[in-house]
């Protein structure tokens, strides 16, 4: 597994009170979520279409996809709030079909928190223990422990309406953890928060997970969030899984054009595929199986370039995908470079975003340059420049012959 940068901090469980806060079973065999052939329809809409997935114990998995991709439905089936039309879901070897939502003991955090508005923070967190009729002393100890974990010790008597969005989110999380669930499920956990609070809570959630090692699945439509927090990402679209992998894998080796388009901005260029070459407008670039930087082809349907079988058909129309950071901008012409004009220069964090008009292909492209390169070029609107593509991707399943 690829180590995500955020995981490199404090990965060993610490034997503090916090370390046992969420998983009563730390040190024992960790639970495992196993989903097989899950299908769910709402009327004619396929929310989930034969989805299979497994989550290793202690893992932090992100379900990433646009709205309507089925990710929330999958989460709600695991929680027991929806029932699949077919397929099965197991947690730690127990078939969930045999358990009602209240028997499953999963922690669920709702997108809009769903805190009990008439109960204060303390009683919200205590709820799962109160309905289990635990002794008052045990409830009190557990609630105090969780209030400390979410750093809201002094706000126990506040009502949810008196809290900020970020505080409500943390209370919702503490409430979900109170009964020491086997897995933690989060539905768009930061969706309703402003950007700064989101960033703060993401880091906090990741650190929390590293401390309590509770198997966690969270749903998001934000790829930055998925990449920053999760150690595995499941990209979903129209009720199906498009790709599963570590964040870096998914980003570097997208399985298909959907994943490519969904994970950040991409330049999409119409092209004609010839034997070993792609013709884009008036320039031709060589296609290799391993891509420009010589990496080996990844397993599965993904190719950094078309397969020989596609090329052999000859005269194939397809699309070429280029990330903005794979476009280089130069003042002087080189072979295989597009002539272009700078339309707009926008500063980004860490560099410049350059929008360019490319007359030979009749469309616009975007190039992202780092500060050093960007300031060395000193680009202004209207400047004539030349673009070269460091790395371009073609997806085999998208190519079709001109004749058909």
């Amino acid at each position, binding site marked *: 597994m690829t180590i995500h940068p955020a995981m490199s901090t404090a990965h060993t469980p610490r034997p503090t009170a916090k370390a046992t806060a969420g998983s009563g079973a730390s040190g024992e065999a960790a639970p495992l979520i196993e989903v097989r052939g899950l299908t769910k329809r709402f009327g004619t809409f396929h929310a989930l279409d034969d989805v299979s997935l497994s989550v290793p114990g202690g893992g932090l998995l992100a379900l990433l996809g646009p709205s309507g991709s089925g990710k929330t439905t999958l989460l709600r089936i695991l*929680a*027991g*709030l929806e029932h699949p039309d077919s397929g099965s879901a197991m947690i730690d070897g127990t078939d969930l079909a045999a358990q009602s*939502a*209240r*028997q*499953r*003991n*999963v*922690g*669920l955090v*709702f997108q*809009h928190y*769903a*805190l*009990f*508005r*008439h*109960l204060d923070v303390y009683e919200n967190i205590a*709820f*799962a223990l*109160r*309905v*289990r009729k635990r002794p008052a002393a045990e409830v009190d100890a557990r609630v105090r422990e969780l209030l400390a974990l979410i750093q809201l010790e002094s706000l126990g008597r506040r009502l949810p309406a008196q809290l900020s969005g970020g505080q409500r989110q943390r209370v919702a999380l503490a*409430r*979900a953890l*109170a*009964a020491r669930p086997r897995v933690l499920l989060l539905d768009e956990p930061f969706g309703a928060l402003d950007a700064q609070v989101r960033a703060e809570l993401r880091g906090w959630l990741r650190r929390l997970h590293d401390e309590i090692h509770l198997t966690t699945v969270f749903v998001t439509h934000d790829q930055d969030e998925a990449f920053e927090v999760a150690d595995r990402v499941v990209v979903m679209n129209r009720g199906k899984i498009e790709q599963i992998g570590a964040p870096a894998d998914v980003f570097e080796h997208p399985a298909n054009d959907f994943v490519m388009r969904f994970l950040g901005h991409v330049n999409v260029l119409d092209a004609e595929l010839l034997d070993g070459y792609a013709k884009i407008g008036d320039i031709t670039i060589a296609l290799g199986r391993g891509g420009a930087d010589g990496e080996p082809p990844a397993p599965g349907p993904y190719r950094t370039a078309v397969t020989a079988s596609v090329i052999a058909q000859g005269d194939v129309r397809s699309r070429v995908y280029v990330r903005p950071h794979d476009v280089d901008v130069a003042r002087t012409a080189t072979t295989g470079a597009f002539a272009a004009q700078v339309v707009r220069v926008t500063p980004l964090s860490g560099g410049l975003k350059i929008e360019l008009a490319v007359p030979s292909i009749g469309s616009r492209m975007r190039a992202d340059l780092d500060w050093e390169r960007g300031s060395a070029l000193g680009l202004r609107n209207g400047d004539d420049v030349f673009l070269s593509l460091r790395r371009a991707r073609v997806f085999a399943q998208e190519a079709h012959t001109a004749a058909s």
Partner: protein
Amino acid sequence: MISARNIEATSEPAWVRRIIIAVAIAFVGLFVVVPVAAVFGEALRAGLAAYGRAIVDPVALSAIKLTFVAAGIAVPLNVVFGIAASWAIARFKFPGRSVLITLIDLPLAVSPVIAGMVFVLLFGKQGLVGPWLSDHGIKVIFALPGIVLATTFVTFPFVARELIPLMEAQGAEEEEAAIVLGATGLQTFLRVTLPKIKWGLLYGIVLCTARAMGEFGAVSVVSGHIRGRTNTLPLHVEILYNEYEYQAAFAVASLLAILALASLVARRVIARRVETT
């Protein structure tokens, strides 16, 4: 400054404003304040002693008792029905849902007299199930069960109509959260749903109670006006009035007016709580 100008832009000349306000106040005065004052004025015309006599009269006391008994049965029934119906309508999509929503309003659309006659047709001597009931010694019409039935029918929209929009607006997420946290259905209802809807429910109960105690038409048809046995407060007022006992009639009517004013105050207080939660 901007808001001041906006007010000016949408406001009428001063004399128009004054006329509109005067018309509104005159209407309320003519149709509400004067009649209510007249009720109390007439009730106390012969002094407090006569007022007291009219109320502690055994027949009047039995009417008061019957009114409270009928309301005491009809209101809880409608609370149960109102919660069940609004729960079903707000939380589930089922065939007949829109029919149910429409039917809940039926008692508000149908004249209460017709509602009373329907019960006579069903449970009376010549009615559909009346003969079977009287064979088994059960008396519905001209007895307490008929009065309760008529009262329940006339008042059943009030709780449901308060709760349906409230429950639809609140959604079911908190209930889902409770169930995932391990609560049973009953625990979810008592610990989550009931506290969420309590002010709306209370508001509905106040409306329902006020109407149940004041209902005349439907109860009049099924009661049979048996003095001291099947007369409710409004029916008792009518009888006294028809017998030219004006002072006594208004004294008993003043009780109904006090009930109405009390429910008005309760509604104001509760409505504020409904808005803030």
